[in-house]
């Protein structure tokens, strides 16, 4: 189910009211059934994949806790193989097979391995990563195995963050699912405001910018450098508003139910270095990779070349996590390379620093360049976009589907977003009347300025 749909509106109202009308011990049933429905709206049969990983990880957690020595590791491995196996089949099988076909083609050989005609289950990478974090934490002894099958299932399936995160940790969420949460008017207001902020980002900013982005990126051959440059900058903000908008709605929805989800974005485009960017962008994923891949690889407590290798490999895998395409691998590799360069500079030339504004500008430009690979349909397309951008002529006409007024409106929206983040503006009128009148006003603004194409959130595909 899409957050930006009427179906979600009715679903949200029903679940929220019923949740607070039910006694605490029955609430998990409502949330679990609601989450199943939420997921099954996309493609009902794929609920079986979720059930499969839930059952495996539930028992793996208990077995890990009860086992000693090597058996603990064996159960953890079984759980990881099951989760990664599901990912491999549904997300990476055809990608690997395609590469095998190309490779064999180089030697004039035919690839006998068939391709699978399967649709990628929505949000697969998110819930498998969340499930894996559970068994790993149980293995490390940081989390007790959950004995309540329903609560564990809800940990994986909790509908606000089921399909696009934040990718939660068991230590943060599981205990909250056990605790009673009486209705709290303050939380309701704060949650509603967070949801409104998310919707504004998604339907007013992201979906509007997507018109310009799609217009240019769907006709790369015909477009000039200036149009592609504008589309790239717009995509930079589109993806941010799309994804952080989703996170805001998820966090707001959960907050109303009494559950606090982790912060997923912290003004990433104000960053002055790539390292800082990654401490502010998709925090739940970057900390996942830090905790479960980077540190086990040795992190920075290894020889310098190995440290750089660790950074690079983690970002390559992070790229691959996003999608089974070389564009995502290059996107990750670029971020990894920038971070390595940044660390070399810090180690060997610590005094070599640009003024603050230039640091920000350089970081922003580097991030923009990497987004070209994220958005382009192929590596060739991405290089063509970059070639056109780096040889652009400012005298060339700007091709956009918008008139001047709407282009100015887009730029104002972006400026407003950056200003809000820079100044830390928040909006929460005191008093019920003022609050609900303001909320109604915001809803009207979202309706009038929103673009309702019922576009999926970009990160759903991952």
């Amino acid at each position, binding site marked *: 189910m*899409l957050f930006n*749909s*009427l*179906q979600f509106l*009715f*679903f949200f*109202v*029903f679940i929220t*009211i*019923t949740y*607070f*009308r039910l006694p605490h011990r029955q609430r998990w049933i409502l949330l679990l059934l609601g989450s199943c*429905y939420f997921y*099954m*709206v996309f493609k*009902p049969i794929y609920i079986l994949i979720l059930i499969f990983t839930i059952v495996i990880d539930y028992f793996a957690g208990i077995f890990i806790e009860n086992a000693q020595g090597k058996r603990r590791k064996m159960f953890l491995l079984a759980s990881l193989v099951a989760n990664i196996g599901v990912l491999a089949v549904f997300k990476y099988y055809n990608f690997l097979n395609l590469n095998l076909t190309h490779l064999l083609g180089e030697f004039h050989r035919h690839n006998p391995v068939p391709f699978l005609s399967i649709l990628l289950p929505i949000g697969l990478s998110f819930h498998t990563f969340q499930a894996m974090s559970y068994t790993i934490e149980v293995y490390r002894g940081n989390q007790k195995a959950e004995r309540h099958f329903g609560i564990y299932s809800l940990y994986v399936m909790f509908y606000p963050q089921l399909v696009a995160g934040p990718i939660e940790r068991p230590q943060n969420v599981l205990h909250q699912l056990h605790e009673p949460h009486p209705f709290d008017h303050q939380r309701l207001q704060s949650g509603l405001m967070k949801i409104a902020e998310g919707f504004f980002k998604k339907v007013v900013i992201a979906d509007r910018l997507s018109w310009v982005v799609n217009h240019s990126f*769907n006709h790369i051959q015909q477009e000039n450098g200036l149009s592609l440059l504008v589309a790239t900058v717009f995509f930079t903000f589109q993806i941010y508003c799309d994804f952080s908008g989703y996170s805001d709605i998820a966090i707001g929805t959960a907050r109303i139910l009494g559950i606090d989800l982790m912060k997923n974005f912290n003004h990433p485009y104000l960053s002055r270095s790539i390292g800082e960017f990654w401490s502010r962008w998709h925090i739940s994923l970057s900390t996942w990779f830090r905790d479960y891949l980077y540190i086990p690889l040795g992190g920075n407590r290894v020889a310098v070349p190995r440290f750089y290798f660790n950074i690079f490999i983690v970002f390559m895998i992070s790229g691959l996590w996003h999608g089974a395409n070389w564009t995502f691998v290059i996107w990750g590799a670029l971020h990894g390379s920038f971070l390595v360069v940044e660390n070399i500079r810090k180690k060997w030339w610590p005094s070599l620093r640009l003024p603050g504004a230039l640091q920000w500008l350089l970081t922003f430009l580097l991030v923009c360049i990497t987004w070209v690979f994220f958005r382009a349909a192929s590596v060739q397309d991405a290089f063509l976009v970059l070639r056109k951008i780096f040889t652009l002529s400012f005298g060339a006409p700007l091709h956009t*589907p*918008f*008139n001047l*007024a*709407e282009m100015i*409106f887009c730029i104002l929206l972006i400026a407003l977003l950056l200003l809000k983040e820079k100044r830390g503006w928040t909006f929460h009128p005191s008093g019920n009347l003022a609050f609900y009148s303001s909320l109604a006003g915001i809803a009207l603004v979202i*309706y*009038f300025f929103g673009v309702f*194409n*019922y576009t999926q959130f970009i990160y759903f595909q991952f």
Partner: protein
Amino acid sequence: MKKFFAYSGMLLSLAALVLASSPYLMKKIKGHIPDPNRNGDLYMMSALPGFKDPHFTEDCPTPAFHSPKLDHVALYILGDSYTKYMKPASFNTAFYHFIHWDDPPHKIAALDSTKRNILIIECTERQIRERFGVSFIHNFAIQKNYHPETDPSIQPHKLDLQAEDNLKYLFTFNKEVGYFKNLKASFNRMVFDRVDKDVYLDKQHQRLYLSATVDTEANTSSFRYLPDQELRTMVKHLNEALAFFQKAGFSAVYFSVMPNPVSLIAPQTGSYNHLVERLQTAPGLKMPYIDAWHLLSPQAPDLYFRSDTHWNCAGRDRWLQAVDSLLHQEAPSPERP
């Protein structure tokens, strides 16, 4: 009071979700809520008040036929939105049966051998490349003792979790929401010079067309390049269909392509591909056709609705009269003693 609101909200939202998820219940309720198309489908999509037609109707008067009724003719139409709403009285024949393109497999009850069975394959120009571009005969079956009303394959599903369209149908086409939609659409048009993505507003702001018929990215567009090879493929499939239906017992089979309004009214909008004319005059084409293109091109702006993608009653009547003349030529009434 708080409890009352809470329970009301809970029950209403649950009722809305259940209703919208049940094709059976939706079918029952559809006659009792405003029809989204009541002012024309282009108006429904665009919400531009200037294109609202309060007198829009798909229920045209029965044509006045000047020739005797063809009691020995059974007419079948395989068609879509243009012929969907026609009633048996729209044709001067003893029997009329409509089969919708969107409902394959198309099962037809065994033909009445005492009558002349005639089939018209009606297709809109925008869907012709998709439909005739592939072989479509395997979607058809003529069955003895077939009763569509008891066919489980064409009964609605009991449950459909994707309830979004039904919810929109239930809640967003009433007068109150319509007011806000009009405001928003007018604002977008005036300030941003933009209309809903599903429609195209001509440069003079006089007529709306379906975007799919103008956008050259779409296969449905009148302005998308049409290679000769693709045309030959369509001819091949039409000829194949002619042989198939003749073998199945139809004494005559025609096709009729309903031109996109933009093709007739504003072909200068882009580089028009002349699909209809090229298909009708394509070498090797064996299936005869009812030439809607030349029937509708004179006075075309007066034969199509401004608020809807389809022909109006005058356009429809023109086509029905042509069909009637053709049926009389094809199956003249037997001489009475």
